[in-house]
């Protein structure tokens, strides 16, 4: 139990946890949106994130951006990453919904079937990058980890005696919070968002009121996918790496975060993500990084036992009983 380390660097560690947690939170949104409307755990969502990270790599190589490139190219590459990653992720999410989930919804299949299908989709997507694309194009695709050029060099922006915050940390946290606020406003204020809430609350009545269910479902997959794409972009900026199975662990953590905060609840995803991120870094400082995942799950079990619907409760549609 390394308390000394924890207290000596408490500020740094907390900021590090918040950074991690912001990425979890953005990915968690995808789980929460889909669950809130369809009552379905979209296990393939982790791969939506993974596709995003590869897209960033693609965007960089498209404009030939590298660590040594000029400022102009760096800006273009970064903007392109922020545009293409969400697009690709949203497209992947939409494809999964159209190809795999929609036929099952037509048959009104039970949740278990969706789950297995999602696991299947997840395998197909990881193997596409780990195997299929490798067979066609060779590296960088394949089973090895690939480093992504770090276009924004890490610099400390805040440096006080008790806390140091770097530019990428600020970027990740701020971008994540901005996206969350925008999404929350969209769902709660806009007409489309009202449709989402209506379907979440009572699909049949919503259909009677003229809400097009399929469109709402497509919308939530697109929104969740786009958020995962942004998360992927932020992740590559902060951690400079991708791998064909990178989505798995982040997906599990993000789903844990969603449940922790109260699945189906957008603000819960933020709270859950941040709490999980911070708890993880504290525990890896206290014990060792080997036990990080154990702590995450133990916290989840404890929260569920005492607050079975998560920290903020579950409600995408606010008035659900």
């Amino acid at each position, binding site marked *: 139990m390394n308390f000394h380390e924890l207290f000596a660097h408490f500020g740094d560690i907390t900021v590090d946890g918040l950074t991690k947690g912001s990425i979890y939170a953005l990915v968690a949104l995808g789980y929460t949106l889909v*669950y809130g409307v369809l*009552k379905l*755990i979209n296990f393939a969502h982790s791969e939506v994130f993974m596709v995003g990270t590869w897209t960033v790599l693609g965007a960089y190589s498209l404009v030939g951006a590298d660590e040594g490139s000029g400022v102009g190219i760096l800006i273009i590459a970064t903007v392109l990453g922020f545009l293409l990653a969400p697009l690709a992720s949203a497209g992947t999410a939409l494809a999964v919904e159209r*190809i*795999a989930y929609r*036929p*099952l*919804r*037509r*048959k*009104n*299949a*039970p*949740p*278990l*079937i969706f*789950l*297995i*299908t999602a*696991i*299947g*989709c*997840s*395998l*197909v*997507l*990881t*193997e*596409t990058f*780990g*195997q*299929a694309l490798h*067979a066609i194009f060779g590296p960088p695709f394949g089973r090895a980890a690939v480093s992504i050029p770090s276009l924004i060099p890490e610099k400390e922006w805040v440096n006080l005696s008790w806390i140091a915050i770097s530019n990428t940390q600020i970027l990740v946290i701020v971008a994540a919070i901005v996206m969350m606020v925008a999404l929350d406003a969209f769902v709660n204020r806009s007409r489309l968002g009202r449709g989402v809430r209506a379907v979440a609350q009572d699909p*049949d009545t919503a*259909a009677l009121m003229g809400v097009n269910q399929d469109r709402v479902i497509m919308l939530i997959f697109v929104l969740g996918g786009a958020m995962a794409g942004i998360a992927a972009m932020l992740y590559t900026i902060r951690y400079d790496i991708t791998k064909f199975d990178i989505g798995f662990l982040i997906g*599990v953590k993000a*789903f*844990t975060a969603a*449940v922790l905060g109260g*699945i189906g609840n957008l603000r819960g995803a933020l709270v859950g993500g941040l709490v999980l991120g911070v708890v993880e870094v504290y525990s890896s400082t206290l014990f*060792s990084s*080997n*036990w990080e*995942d*154990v702590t*995450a*799950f*133990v916290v*989840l*079990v404890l929260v*569920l*036992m005492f607050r*079975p619907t998560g920290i903020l409760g579950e409600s995408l549609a606010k008035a659900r009983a």
Partner: protein
Amino acid sequence: MPEISELWKSVNLRERWETAPTWVRMIVSGILLAIAIYLPFLNVLPFAYIRTDLSTGGSDWSGVLTTIVIYMIVATGLNVVIGMAGLLDLGYVGFYAIGAYSLALFGSPDSPVTHWFADKFGLSEGWSVPFVACVPIAIAIALAAGVVLGAPTLRLRGDYLAIVTMGFGEIIRIISRNANGLTNGPNGITNVPTPPGPKDPDTGQPFFNPIDGYRWYWLCLAVLILLIWLVRRLEYSRVGRSWLAIREDEDAAAVMGVSGFKYKLWAFAIGAAVGAIAGLLFGSKQTFVEPTGFALNLSFLFVAMVVIGGSGNMVGALFGAFLITYLPERFRGLSDWRPFCFGVALVLVMILRPQGLIPNRRRARELEDRRLEAEEVATDD
């Protein structure tokens, strides 16, 4: 596929089997059993093409058969949890690992646990618990783990149960990897004991050794048959009825005096014990246990076996286990493509045949009803 399924329906194997007189069924079962026993020596063309070791680099045929049967045991246990009681357990690999590690920790003279016992009680060097005694220890530990995991979590809703059990599976693996003092960490534990038997007089090899793979296969087959027989007994008793009632309508079942929690916990514990037995056989056959053998993906594979075969139906679950283990071994030439093909197959089977390949009749009907209901709603619009 409709023509094939029509043809299948017209043959109606299931009904014929159920209406057949006892002696016919006994003879057919006897023949099937004989074939199963003979399989490792199968060398008659064209049937020998099912063997996996025809091409160079193929897997040892007896070894593959053993793995198939071990996974069939897993499917039998998981079918109790998922198919009968309707509980989604995504951490089943945890119990499989507990079985393997229990045997290794108590049965291997190289494990930290036996060392500790030897030091503490002044036992001779190389002391370990005999294999036969390890079996009840492993089952007891798995039962306890099932209860410890189930008691706080079985009250949770289905989806939460899925994630919590998944966490459990991961925790077991992480502990086995990181608790160096207990499990030797990533190095694993060597010298895991094999079941007792007469030693080979010439070579001094134990009776269950890697060369005579068919012995392992026969042992696992015997265990599988025993377990199936026991699980059948439960299925056709008040226990099976209670599971079914809970799955259908938990509140109504409670009013009929069925304690949902108690029977769910039993399903969980029984599943855990069966999973541990499978893990124990696996560990013993490898004579070596290490954390990487119990990755979370294996849990998904297990669930896929049960669901692809036909959830709730034991024959279906066994068939699913067979397919998922056998096909990748048979087509090892495509080894790099195996996970990809597996993923595609999962998606296709689920979309085209959500009730599984050999569905439980009840489940098939439930799905059919749900489909019709959905169609009715669609035409109402």
